[in-house]
């Protein structure tokens, strides 16, 4: 009799242990698998930027409950007391403990973590796994830069396009906004739009004001390059940041901020030509923010100012001031 009891205890412990192990294999291993994928990329390619992003929507709080575990636990206890058959109890024990481990992992943040790697060759994404077990997990994705026309930014998503079609979208961390654009610029991935579409609350106002000042300074530096042109056209530039609202109302619907370049005739002070370069346009809940980074910005400013000067020249020719 004791033999049987001992054997039964052993079998129960075995079933329970197997259940826990399966749970670990299915859900506990996913973090490790993500790490392994990351390491594999790091070994073979030069990584320029890497980040783990929690893609859970902040502020939207979902109250989790544990009813599944409780109800199944009750059923399991019932099974133990009732003991309809040895095999049934063993299978029940195995299933319940596996489920319990799965539940433990379902509460952890790991299921929301997504990894993004920008390498010299392309983009690697290890998607967040949600509640998928290891054998049904979403595979790492790869997108080579040469297959991509360019990218856009929408909220905290990077959208990579090919022939106007989104190939892949990936979320980046808000604090990486600057760096991601910088790295993509250095890697030669084109921006498809001058502006990024962002949520209005995403706009960091102090950072934006610094950006305005900085861009304005850059603009003056670029204008310095066109000094001869300006003298030849007999004009003086009027250049600066303009807004259609006061500064503290930048987040209101229809508020805008832009760079304004006016060319004024030296003698008459008449405006020969004017042109603007958008920095920010708010549509209430979303806004369009100029997202050019350093070198791109200088290039764009140069192109814009050059274009404006050419237009000014045409205008002057029409007036007959410059032959």
């Amino acid at each position, binding site marked *: 009799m004791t033999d049987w009891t001992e054997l039964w205890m052993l079998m129960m412990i075995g079933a329970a242990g197997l259940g826990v192990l399966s749970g670990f294999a299915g859900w506990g291993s996913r973090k490790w698998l993500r790490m392994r994928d990351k390491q594999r990329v790091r070994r073979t390619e030069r990584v320029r930027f890497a980040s783990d992003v929690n893609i859970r929507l902040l*502020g939207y709080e979902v109250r989790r409950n544990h009813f599944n575990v409780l109800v199944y636990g009750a059923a399991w206890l019932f099974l133990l007391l009732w003991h*309809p058959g040895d095999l049934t109890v063993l299978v029940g024990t195995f299933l319940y403990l596996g489920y319990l481990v799965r539940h433990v992992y379902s509460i952890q943040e790991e299921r929301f973590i997504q990894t993004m790697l920008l390498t010299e060759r392309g983009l690697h994404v290890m998607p967040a796994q949600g509640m998928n077990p290891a054998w049904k997990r979403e595979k790492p994705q790869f997108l080579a830069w040469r297959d991509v026309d360019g990218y856009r930014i929408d909220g*905290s998503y990077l959208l990579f396009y090919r022939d106007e079609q989104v190939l892949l979208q990936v979320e980046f961390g808000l604090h990486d906004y600057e760096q991601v654009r910088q790295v993509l610029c250095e890697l030669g991935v084109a921006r498809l739009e001058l502006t990024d579409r962002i*949520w*209005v*609350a995403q706009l960091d106002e102090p950072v934006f004001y610094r950006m305005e000042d900085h861009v304005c300074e850059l603009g003056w530096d670029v204008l310095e390059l066109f000094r001869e042109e300006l003298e030849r056209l007999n004009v003086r530039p009027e250049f600066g940041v303009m807004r259609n609202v006061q500064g503290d109302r930048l987040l209101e619907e229809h508020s805008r901020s832009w760079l304004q370049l006016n060319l004024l005739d030296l003698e008459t002070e008449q405006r020969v030509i004017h042109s603007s370069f958008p920095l920010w346009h708010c549509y*209430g*809940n979303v806004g369009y923010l100029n997202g050019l980074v350093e070198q791109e910005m200088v290039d764009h400013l140069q192109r814009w100012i050059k274009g404006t000067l050419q237009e000014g020249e045409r205008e002057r020719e029409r007036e007959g001031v410059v032959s």
Partner: protein
Amino acid sequence: MNAFLTGVLFAGALWGLLYGTNILWRLLLERRHRNRHEVVAEYRVWQGQTEESWSKGLSIWPLGAVIGLILGDGAFAWGIFAGTVLVLAGFWPFYKKSKTVCSETVMFDRDGIAFFPPRQGFVHQGIFKARIDWQDVYGYSAHKGSILFALRPLGHVEQHYGPYRREFSDVLNRLDVQKLVAFDVVDEAEARAEDLQLLERDVFAVAEDVVSGYKTEAAGAGVRLEPKVLYGQEAEEGELVGGHAYLHIGVWDGETCLRELEWMIWERSDGDVEVLSLPRERLYEILDERLEAVLEERLGQLGVEAQPAVLQ
């Protein structure tokens, strides 16, 4: 007979645990929420019944069959069978039409908003409750059947408003949640003529109020302010494609109109209607701001005209 009855009771209890508890738990949750928060408004948004209903209720049968097989007791299995039939006939139709299964409860309170989504069963049916605190909300807007809560720093949550667009907006305005987009986009069916007329009257009343506040200043500037609601129609190849109503404030000097201030109230286009929807005090503020600017401009012009005369 005893085993048969046990089977019936067992089926009933199982159904109660898997489905019936759902209603009770939802009631309990809602009551607890009302006790813990200062709920200022509460709405039930009907989401409709889901289709897969009957098969779910039948899922007790195979379970009963398995248990019957394990026990080797036919009467028990038959009892479960009979119990399931009873439950399906007696409870299921009412259960499928219950508020818990078909509607979502939305509760606004001082600190946030709580959603109790419709639930089909007690286990494996998603969430019981979700919540957003106002401190995480940047503002809201309405678009085609949903209120969009813009979150801070990013993202948004869509919430169906059912027939309660105005009610939701009123409550949110009262709770000082910022309205981000002045115009709501709604379906043609939702923009009833009487609602639009009511809105026109509202806006006109505000305009009259603001204008009367500027009476003396306007007289000082030698002008008269006249608010009107005007209508426009847009036709394409003789067919009516849209229309709009706008508030028009004319700045009159005798018989000549010096300036016109226009503000859209609603506009129909391509089956959608854009409806002005701002809290009253925002309407006041904006109109006030615009009128002040116009009058200042007028006074400035008068000053320019007057200046040479003084210098001579």
